[in-house]
């Protein structure tokens, strides 16, 4: 039933190594200034700036991150009511 036992055992170990290298490089260096600890502050500051122009709640912001080997991405979504109160 389980005829896969000879399939890539080596491949899974090298995937593990790659994943660790990428993660640990980020954890050690806080690369690109994007240390996890700076994100709450970043979030507060973004909210502050946006609030100068629009009325939005604390939950209106959603920050997503994807750490990569050579490139990381930060995705920031701001939701606001359809008829928003532009100042």
């Amino acid at each position, binding site marked *: 039933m*389980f005829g896969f036992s000879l399939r890539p055992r080596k491949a*899974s170990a090298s995937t593990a190594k790659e994943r660790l290298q990428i993660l640990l490089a980020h954890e050690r260096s806080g690369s690109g200034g994007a240390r996890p600890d700076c994100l709450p502050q970043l*979030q507060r500051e973004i909210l502050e700036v946006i609030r100068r122009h629009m009325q939005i709640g604390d*939950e209106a912001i959603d*920050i997503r*991150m994807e750490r990569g080997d050579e490139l990381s991405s930060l995705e920031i979504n701001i939701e606001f009511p359809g008829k928003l109160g532009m100042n």
Partner: protein
Amino acid sequence: MSKDLKLEEPLGKVIVVTSGKGGVGKTTTSAAVGAELARRGHKTVVIDFDVGLRNLDMIMGCERRVVFDFINVIQGDAKLKQALIRDRRLETLSVLPTSQTRDKDALTKDGVQKVLEELRQEFDYIICDSPAGIERGAQMAMHFADEAIVVTNPEVSSVRDSDRVLGLLNSITDRAGKAGAEPVKAHVLITRHDKSRISNGEMMKVEDVLEVLAEPLLGIIPESKAVLRASNLGVPVVLDDPSAAATAYEDAVGRLIGEQIEMRIAADRRPGLLQRLFGRAV
């Protein structure tokens, strides 16, 4: 507690995965049980309580996507919604990672309770992945549990620690302290079960473990190469290729949600005479 007049959605169930001893398979179990519940369509979140030694994110394969964590939510730096990481394979599955930089004192009883109450509204199952030991982190993970999966290896120190943990579940948890509340419903999950080492007497038999612990058996997870492979890949073992461990976790989850499934000890097929003879219990 609930109001009689209003039809309310049932609240989610909090299940702690705990063991006392380290290295027995708590995080593997949390990931597998969470993923299997989600695969069956139940909205499930798995929370890492091992503050300072974050690992659930690695096992679930979302380590590169952590932005905010459990501690940020407790301390008000992020909303719960902002810290939850939605699994890319199953939309019913989420992970709440813990902090890698703080320590366990950041977990407050009030903070944990608030987060769990919010999660109960949103999810059917909340799986709390406990740290090893019986200190603060482990106590916080079990405190608000409705049920507990006590992960045990068929080996003396693990069984002894499990017994200690069962004692704590019955004495220091929220349910233990509330007059009239049902006690935490405990299940024993035997992991790293090695048939050949049991048959030659090196490892304790399942019935011996259960006799000592005197709690119902949720399942028997065989020692399996599939578990290491799944960790390497960051895939809960039930979502990777079929394996004996995956089958065993699927059965365990079925029992957890009340299905009657006969206890069986699955084994991966490997070359070798013994395996040929005994490996067909699948």
